[in-house]
């Protein structure tokens, strides 16, 4: 606990420090080549970070590095989501542990470092810090996308992600440069002032172009249409464990950063960028949901579904409704992350054993593995936004924030799209419960007791969010 200027207890950047230090320690643990140590160690580290992060909840906000980074409730809340997500996801890396891959420690360390990036993205106060955060996160992701070295698809995914991602980063940086040129500031607060009252009116076009370029860069990172083309291929090629990380942590951090950018820095120019963001929202919802319908592979379906969820989260950005939006995005990200980790966790277990990812590979899963089928069903219902699960209230709060600002048409469109989504989320459920298993797939999928436990935790969390949303509906 640090002491602020006023002497009160202030919020720390404990999580960043812990993660960086542990990330390095973890690399050294790799020398032991003992896989039995690595997974528990990583989990303990993440649990510690999660606890230390929550410990700061009631402390006063505090800024670091000449106000480049602020740890406040907003950042603590989103740090909580990304840490928890990783903590719950890591047990599903176990295949790697058993295979005894030599560079396992590196992968864990990369995840820990990328979390540092994610935390910087949710606590930045300065565009440079945003850029550094995005880069830390992205570079780790480029590496892990290609971590299945002998698989051509994984290589393709890494290359595609890296090339497209680099372009996006370049565009983002260009945008930041233009915004700096127009406003003379990197800090969000100063930019906000300059957006409302520019020093020189002739700078305005430059500011606007800079803004748009920044939007493009971040939209790429959160896979919003029309900058989504990389998503299905990269998600499909990347090993499932890391795909889950990409579609939860990266997205959550991306949206937290995007919302802060729009709310704090560019709020004054709302009338200028609302049409753009609105167009992205509608397009993303359409592409994600309609695209998912046509898929035959569950993994690709989940990739498109993650695009569609970016669309729903975008509604929170369009609404730009202060606390309502922030709380909505928080709740939605949490419910979405929990459900997505559960879905990818089950998918990974099944596809590792059956070496397939199409719908038919889930046939009869309810008979062979009732728990896996149940948890996957809960995840699908949550993603579809059906009551009793967290996903329903996620959508409810986001739509509520938008209705509050009068975006009725947008909400109706989103509702129509979520009707479409029920179609593709129900298909794996039908496969699991209503179709008989194919002949060579009557063997139960091997699941360790610990993984079962985590799956149950994920299902329970989804129900808790769906039945008692009041617990977390107003954290900010």
């Amino acid at each position, binding site marked *: 606990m640090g002491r602020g200027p006023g002497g009160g207890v202030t919020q720390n950047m404990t999580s960043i420090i812990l993660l960086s230090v542990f990330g390095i320690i973890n690399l050294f643990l790799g020398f032991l080549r003992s896989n039995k140590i690595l997974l528990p160690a990583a989990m303990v580290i993440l649990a510690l970070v999660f606890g230390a992060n929550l410990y700061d909840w009631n402390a006063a906000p505090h800024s670091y590095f000449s106000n480049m980074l602020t740890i406040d409730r907003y950042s603590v809340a989103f740090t909580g989501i990304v840490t928890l997500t990783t903590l719950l996801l890591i047990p599903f890396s176990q295949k790697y542990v058993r295979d005894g891959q030599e560079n396992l420690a590196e992968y864990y360390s990369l995840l820990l470092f990328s979390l540092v990036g994610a935390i910087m993205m949710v606590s930045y106060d300065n565009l440079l810090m945003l850029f550094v955060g995005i880069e830390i996160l992205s570079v780790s992701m480029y590496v892990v996308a290609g971590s299945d070295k002998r698989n051509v698809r994984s290589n393709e995914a890494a290359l595609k992600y890296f090339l497209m991602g680099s372009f996006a980063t370049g565009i983002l940086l260009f945008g930041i440069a233009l915004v700096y040129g127009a406003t003379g500031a990197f800090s969000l607060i100063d930019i906000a002032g300059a957006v409302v009252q520019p020093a020189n009116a002739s700078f305005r076009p430059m500011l606007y172009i800079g803004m748009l370029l920044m939007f493009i860069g971040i939209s790429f990172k959160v896979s919003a249409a029309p900058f989504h083309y990389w998503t299905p291929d990269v998600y499909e090629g990347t090993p499932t464990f890391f795909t889950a990380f990409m579609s939860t942590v990266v997205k959550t951090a991306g949206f937290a950063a995007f919302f802060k950018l729009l709310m704090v820095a560019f709020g004054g120019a709302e009338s200028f960028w609302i049409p753009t963001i609105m167009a992205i929202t509608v397009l993303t919802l359409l592409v994600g949901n309609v695209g998912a319908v046509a898929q035959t592979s569950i993994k690709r379906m989940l990739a498109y579904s993650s695009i569609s969820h970016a669309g729903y989260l975008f509604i929170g950005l369009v609404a730009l409704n202060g606390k309502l939006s922030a709380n909505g995005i928080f709740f939605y990200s949490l419910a979405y992350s929990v459900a997505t980790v559960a879905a990818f966790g089950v998918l990974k277990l099944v596809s590792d054993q059956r070496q397939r990812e199409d719908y038919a590979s889930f046939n009869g899963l309810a008979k062979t593995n009732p728990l896996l089928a149940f948890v996957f069903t809960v995840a699908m219902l949550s993603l579809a936004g059906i009551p009793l699960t967290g996903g329903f209230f996620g959508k409810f709060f986001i739509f509520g924030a938008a209705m509050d600002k009068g975006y009725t048409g947008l909400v109706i469109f989103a509702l129509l799209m979520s009707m479409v989504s029920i179609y593709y989320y129900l298909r794996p459920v*039908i496969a699991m419960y*209503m179709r008989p298993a194919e002949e060579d797939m009557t063997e139960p999928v091997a699941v360790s007791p610990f993984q079962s436990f985590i799956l149950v935790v994920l299902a329970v969390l989804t129900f808790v969010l769906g039945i008692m949303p009041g617990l977390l509906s107003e954290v900010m």
Partner: protein
Amino acid sequence: MLTVFLLLFPVAAALLLHFAKGNAARVMALGAALVEFVVAVYAAVLSQVTAQTQFEVNLPWVASAGINFHVGMDGLSLVLVLLTAFLVPLIILASFRHDYPNASAFYALILFMQTGLIGVFVSLDAFLFYFFWEVALIPIYFLAGVWGSERRIAVTFKFFLYTIIGSLFMLAAFVYLYFQTGIHGAVRSSDIIAFYNLTLSSDQQAWVFWLIFAAFAVKMPIFPFHTWQPDTYTESPTPATMLLSGIMLKMGIYGCLRWLLPIVPKGVSHWGPLVMVLCIIGIIYGAIIAIRQRDVKRLIAYSSLSHVGLMAAGVFSLTMMGLQGTVIQMLAHGVNVVGMFFIADIIQRRTGTRDISELGGLTKNTPALSVTFLVLLLSTVALPLTAGFVGEFLLLGGVYQYNHWMGAVAGVTIILGAVYLLRMFQRVMLGPDTQFTATIKDLTGSELAVLVPLILMVFWIGLFPGTFLRISEPAIMQIMTIVNR
């Protein structure tokens, strides 16, 4: 607190059922359902005959948004809770002759469904209502989809999509109304009272009406939203069919009474004539198609479609007689249709067929079955002294008050009903034996245990309808007052 117990007890029992295996599961489920029934009757005994909501519980649910866990029962809710609590144990008992694979899950889903159904009938908060509305859908989808017959996958998928899309429209309406409650700077609320007190313009009511009505119309179902119904009823395992037709269908009618008429009365009076026409079309259409059916179960499904049309017509007649008729007919139809589907199930299990042309001559070997079948059938045809008569009489009276011509056309339902039901009885039960029916055995233990209470209820409602009409009357009068203000 009684309401909360009624809500939570089935789901708690469902969770416990996970630890039971095979026959123990169904016995436990039956025990739980009986406890639930006893508590529901106890609540009915304790309740007073007023329009006041009783056994009320109001706790914050999403406090920041003004959404409460607000449940309670007035007479209307109580009648439907009683119906649910009465039918669920019988439905469980009716399944005893089948060995469903994975029985603990099967019975857990039935109990889980009961929580959803009771939740719908006692919710006094719009979002809570929607919540339970969907909670009731999920178990029935799995019951029908997992344990159903051959074509179940496509059929239940259609059912699920239809109902959930309908209910999303209702959700949209509720969200809209919820924001309307806060329009003059008041704190937003999704409480039913806040919705009743909204002053919406006629235009607003006109389109909000359709959003809400979409959900109810699909659930009941009203022509032309009915296309999922015959297939789903036919393909589902019998307990699921009974739940669907006996109780779930009433969710739609109850929804109209509680959440449609009082909230958008102007919308109802604006669109009422059109809906009435749809209802009447449904009555005639269902009856005519029923005449053509060869499959007993499918025939009952279409007859149910015809009857629900009349109940809906009673609701939209907006007369005291029609509304009270709807209430009593909901009970009567629940009892009749569950009994009829059970008898169809018994016949199919004994003979291996449901095809009317392959059946015949059952009366000779099965006197008890024949008598019970005939009583239930005559009650469905609305013979005086039976449950069906009271309901249909009041309903037709209500529709007649609304419009003479519609009343006359709707009255045809009784004639057509007699045609298709008696014709079925004649061909299935009378006449010469067929190869399928020669060695059929009469009713035994658990079957009688299901049918006797149903028959008793048929006569109770038929002879003393006042027992139930008295419970619901104040609540219905209050709804009428709100509609007419």
